[in-house]
């Protein structure tokens, strides 16, 4: 059993695990598209945290590859949020509702 603390990788991985689980839970249970988007953001955050943690606890000193990968995750999340919210806006304009179960099509 690893000891938890700021200098142990296990604590960061545990936080990332909880974040990812919360994201999966949000995606599975939410009916609203914004709720699903929040879940996706949580999962991406968990991934970025894992990148940073593994990069920090590698053997080489001053190795920032993990951090760089985490920056790319943040970029992907930003692009995804912009496109998702634009789509959501479009769906809302046509059907006045963003319930995922009710939304059958984008064509009006």
């Amino acid at each position, binding site marked *: 059993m690893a000891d938890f*603390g*700021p200098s142990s990788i296990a*604590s*960061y991985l545990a*936080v990332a695990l*909880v*974040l990812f689980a*919360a*994201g999966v*839970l*949000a995606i599975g*249970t939410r009916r*609203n598209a*914004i*709720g699903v*988007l*929040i*879940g996706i*953001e*949580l999962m991406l*955050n968990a991934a*970025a*945290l894992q990148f*940073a*943690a593994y*990069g*920090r606890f590698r053997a080489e000193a*001053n190795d*920032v*590859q993990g*951090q*760089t990968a*985490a*920056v*790319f995750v*943040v*970029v*992907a*999340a*930003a*692009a*995804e*949020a*912009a*496109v998702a*919210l*634009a*789509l*959501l*806006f*479009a769906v*809302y*304009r*046509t059907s006045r509702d*963003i319930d995922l179960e009710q939304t059958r099509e984008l064509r*009006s």
Partner: protein
Amino acid sequence: MFWTCCLCAISGAIGAAVVRNLFHASLLLGLSLVGIAGLYLFLEASYLACVQVIVYVGGILVLVMFATLFSSDVMGAVQRTPSWLRVTGITGALLASVVAVRLAAVAIHVAKGLEMTRGAMGRPDAITGGNGTEAIGDLLTGAWFVPFLAAGFLLTLALVAAVATVKRFRRTTEALRG
């Protein structure tokens, strides 16, 4: 401090996944994001912490909250905020401000290091006070150059796609009305 950040991240994430009200969920997502920014500081990734706060809290969270306010009856729900959620919110705000103070302390520390470097070396271009920020820049323009370009391309594409989507549907709805 470390456990405060962990608590922020975990409780915010679980709350964002479970709470029924979307407005509260997005606020709790913000709590989680700030907590993760604090964890990045413990991983000696202050650049990543700044990116997290600027892009996630300043960009994505504002977008999500705008969409929430835009698309649902939030004000009625805010009036009915249960008291336990109010207490959680106040506690979260306090924890987040602790993290913010810590971030500011790191920023001041880095700025002082930068000042010392500049004063001692007399080279205004030398930025050596950051924790790996210089190394990240080297990596992005060196070994990771193609992914870096791809990320820029992705962002441009996302911007164009978002604008095109909204414009196309506006035209459709106008055609339907007229």
